[in-house]
């Protein structure tokens, strides 16, 4: 499968590494030249320098033949627009995005992004689970 990842941060880089190990073809788009260099040194020449506000960077990454698009930036506006371009304009079959709030996750659901992961909610839940394991009695529904 050909998979395009937006964002060469911690999350983007880890996913890219796992996907490459699983024999998938991967490209990672980032607007930061340093981050592109870092990921190229680590994983081979897979980076595409470009800003999502410029959809040409999606074209440069070969979006029209991608099977999956994953957006991992810190900016939910960029996550939303890139998924929407990938899905509705470039007809990529599957789109997945991280978000930073439940409202944005709901919005991405309404525009039919396949999966959204609200990382703040995820981390909160993980933390609560771990605190519970320490023996604290916490009722989340309160």
């Amino acid at each position: 499968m050909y998979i395009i990842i937006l964002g060469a941060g911690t999350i983007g880089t880890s996913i890219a590494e796992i996907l490459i190990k699983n024999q998938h073809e991967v490209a990672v788009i980032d607007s930061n030249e340093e981050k592109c260099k870092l990921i190229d040194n680590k994983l081979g020449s897979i980076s595409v320098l470009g800003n999502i506000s410029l959809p040409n960077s999606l074209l440069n990454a070969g979006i029209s033949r991608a099977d999956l698009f994953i957006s991992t930036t810190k900016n939910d506006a960029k996550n939303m627009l890139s998924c929407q371009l990938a899905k509705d304009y470039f007809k990529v079959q599957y789109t997945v995005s991280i978000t930073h709030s439940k409202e944005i996750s709901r919005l991405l659901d309404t525009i039919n992004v396949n999966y959204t992961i609200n990382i703040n909610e995820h981390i909160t839940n993980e933390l609560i689970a771990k605190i519970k394991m320490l023996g604290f009695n916490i009722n989340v529904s309160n």
Partner: protein
Amino acid sequence: MSQINMMAKISIIGCGNSGGLIAVSFANIGYQIDIIDINYKKFKTLPENLISEGYLNPIVADATKIENLKKVMDPESNICIILSGNDSNNALISQIVKNELNIPKVICELNEEITSELYLSLGFIVINKNDLFKKNILDLFERD
């Protein structure tokens, strides 16, 4: 150009050069305009008299946050014009205004060709500054 109902309530998001200019032009001819920006300093360019007379209502809020926008935006707004100066923020705000606040007419600035094309097809009214500029220049040449 079709007439805009004088009773229309217009909200403008972004008080930069374009947003401020449009807000003031509409307020000058009698519309009541809500203008939203994350940075209160942007409102300094708005004429005091239009604010004190109630034609311009400046609101400080981060429009990319759904809950903030729900709090400050008049649900009776008929038209929302989005001019935050950044394509991805404008796209996100358009989706919020359309899907979460159900504002009937959403006008949104998108300067990238592909993005504007997509949003046109999604039913938004799109203003592409680069396109307008290009058309104006071509018109000038054709006139000669």
